[in-house]
């Protein structure tokens, strides 16, 4: 379970993020904020729908059509944000036993697979949007055009692509020089570290996602223990 290999580089400070990295990070934060806001709005719209329908005989016209099209906002916009924070689940059984260069090679491999499939999906989902845009497509009930929601897929995946490219470069550098600081790259967590991250999420007590450029999960796990 132990992953001591991370301890050494973790404590030294990471180099300042590149301009591209900061721009992508900013875009990710903004998009996730939009996704978050859309969830709040969906909730309010649904409350309006129930209240309107049951008390005033005035349901929101085309509520299902609206909800479905709006879902693309929270289903996709945060996808790169989630990748940056290592939020897409994976199995760390084997990864957790690897150290140093081999570990970083495995991370390179993992990101490469995602890069390949995401590149293909950007292309494919763009055509899905293009068909809706050129031939026309609208929803079943109140005929909302579907292209605005379809275009969100290639758009969000493109931001993810940028994030993956940045991670690819960073992991490659780590392969060449495993003593480099790992910065805010997602890395394997043992169960205790994973738990620490879950605890932070449960209490919403860190807003590192929005501000700090270099969250340090190991330290925050330790801080967690001291705090509690």
């Amino acid at each position, binding site marked *: 379970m132990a992953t001591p290999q991370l301890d050494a580089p973790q404590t030294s400070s990471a180099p300042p993020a590149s301009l591209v990295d900061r721009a992508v990070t900013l875009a990710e934060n903004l998009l*996730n*904020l939009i996704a*978050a*806001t859309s*969830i*709040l709005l*969906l909730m309010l*719209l*649904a*409350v309006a729908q*129930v209240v309107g329908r049951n008390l005033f005989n005035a349901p929101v016209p085309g509520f299902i059509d609206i*909800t*479905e099209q709006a*879902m*693309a906002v*929270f*289903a996709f916009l945060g*996808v790169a*944000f*989630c990748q940056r*924070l290592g*939020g*897409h*689940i*994976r*199995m*760390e*059984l*084997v990864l957790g036993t690897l150290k140093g260069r081999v570990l970083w090679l*495995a991370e390179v*491999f*993992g990101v490469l*697979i*995602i890069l390949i*499939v995401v590149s*293909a*999906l950007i*292309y*494919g*989902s*763009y*055509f*899905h949007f293009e068909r809706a845009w050129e031939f026309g497509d609208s929803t079943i009930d109140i005929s909302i055009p579907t292209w605005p929601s379809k275009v969100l*897929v290639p758009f969000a*995946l493109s931001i993810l692509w940028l994030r993956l490219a940045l991670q690819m470069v960073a992991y490659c550098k780590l392969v060449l020089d495993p003593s480099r600081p790992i910065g805010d790259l997602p890395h*394997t967590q043992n169960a*205790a570290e*994973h*738990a*620490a991250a*879950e*605890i932070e999420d*449960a*209490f*919403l007590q860190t*807003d590192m996602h929005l501000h700090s450029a270099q969250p340090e999960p190991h330290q925050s*796990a330790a801080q*967690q*223990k001291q705090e*509690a």
Partner: protein
Amino acid sequence: MTSFDIGLLMTGLLLVLVVLGVRVAFAAAFTGLVGMTAIFAMRMGFERGAFTAIKMAGTIPHSKSVTYALSVLPTFILIGYLAYYAGLTKQLFDASKKWLGWLPGGMAIGTVFATAGFAAVSGASTATSAVFARVAIPEMLEQGYSKRLAAAVVAAGGTLASLIPPSAILVIYAILVEESVGKLLMAGFLPGVVSVLIYVGIIMFMAKWQGGAPSIGGFSWAERFKSVPGTLPIIGVILIIFSSLYYGFATPTEAGSLGAFVVLITAFAKGMRLKQLFQALHETAKLTVMIFTLIWGVLVYVRFLGYAGLPEAFKGFITSLDYPPMMIIVMILLAYAVLGMFMDAIGMLVLTLPVVFPAIMALNGGLDVSAVDSVLGMSGAACAIWFGIIVVKMAELCLITPPIGLNCFVVSGVSPDIPVQDVFRGCTPFFVADVLTVAVLVAFPAIITWLPSLI
């Protein structure tokens, strides 16, 4: 090479990628894409085949995510994040303690009821354990409870959140197997209650025979009744979600939104600030996008499976086995228990169900089989619901088993002087309780299928 061979090969590849630690959603999408390319290439040559596969795969993220039934997910997730701010944890624990403390092991029993109550506003097991570790464990330790019991009851109680609605994992199951979301949610309720009762039984037994779990009394009726109003928002949410599922005056999405709205108002009343609301929303958005990505990623792979005919073949294989169907199902459940030790519950379900579920249904006699003609004595629809609850219960069981039982690590993480080994050891009786619960649910499927049959 036939489509079926490609299906097997790609499934092997997917397994390898997942074990190597490629993020599950993308590993599945990658394999599905490669597999579809291979199948189309056989028919129309490589280049056209690849483009057709890529364009086909490109339709899936949007078409599969933009589905009304899935819109319930963020509302359920949001309720859970806001519930902590609404101060519901403390209130629930306080009320349960005052009402149930006099029982043998009363504080632990109170904790089980409080976690069950919190489960009615939260769909996340680990988060439930985390918040109660902070509220309940220090008090239990103060009253002379053993560390192991105090920690274990919180770890185990947390697992109730996935059974008792709202539950994100039940929604995901319902969508994957194309069953009614409302029915799955209703189905989780009684098994949750059975789990609670079995936990209570085990606690009382341990309190009597092992000690380390004193009862605490001395609360007056006035004090008890005073503790009730604090839990009203929870009761409100339970009423909203249940009555809307039961009477159907609101869809699950609408019910989840109403519930979230009630908790939101309560949280604001308790002093939650706008900044905290947005933190909760950010977390909700992150978890939501993770789940959606997982769903469409795996559905790219499932689309490929449809072309390869693999689910049909697995169905044929399973039904041709010369063992009693119930034994095969138990073997499958055991396989889930092992898999769950190493994998996240949602990831595990999403990856395996497309192949396993049709096989289970075939074992019972088909999707449309009537209860009378079925092998297991359940209609096709009832069997789908039954299997979902059992599988989710199995997946939850893995949260309290070594080596990576997350709830135990979370409890230990929140409680500085309780080592995780102690939490695991303390969980042994609860593990036994859970196995007992699964056995009861297998023996008496009506506990699962009765409530949903009413709607």
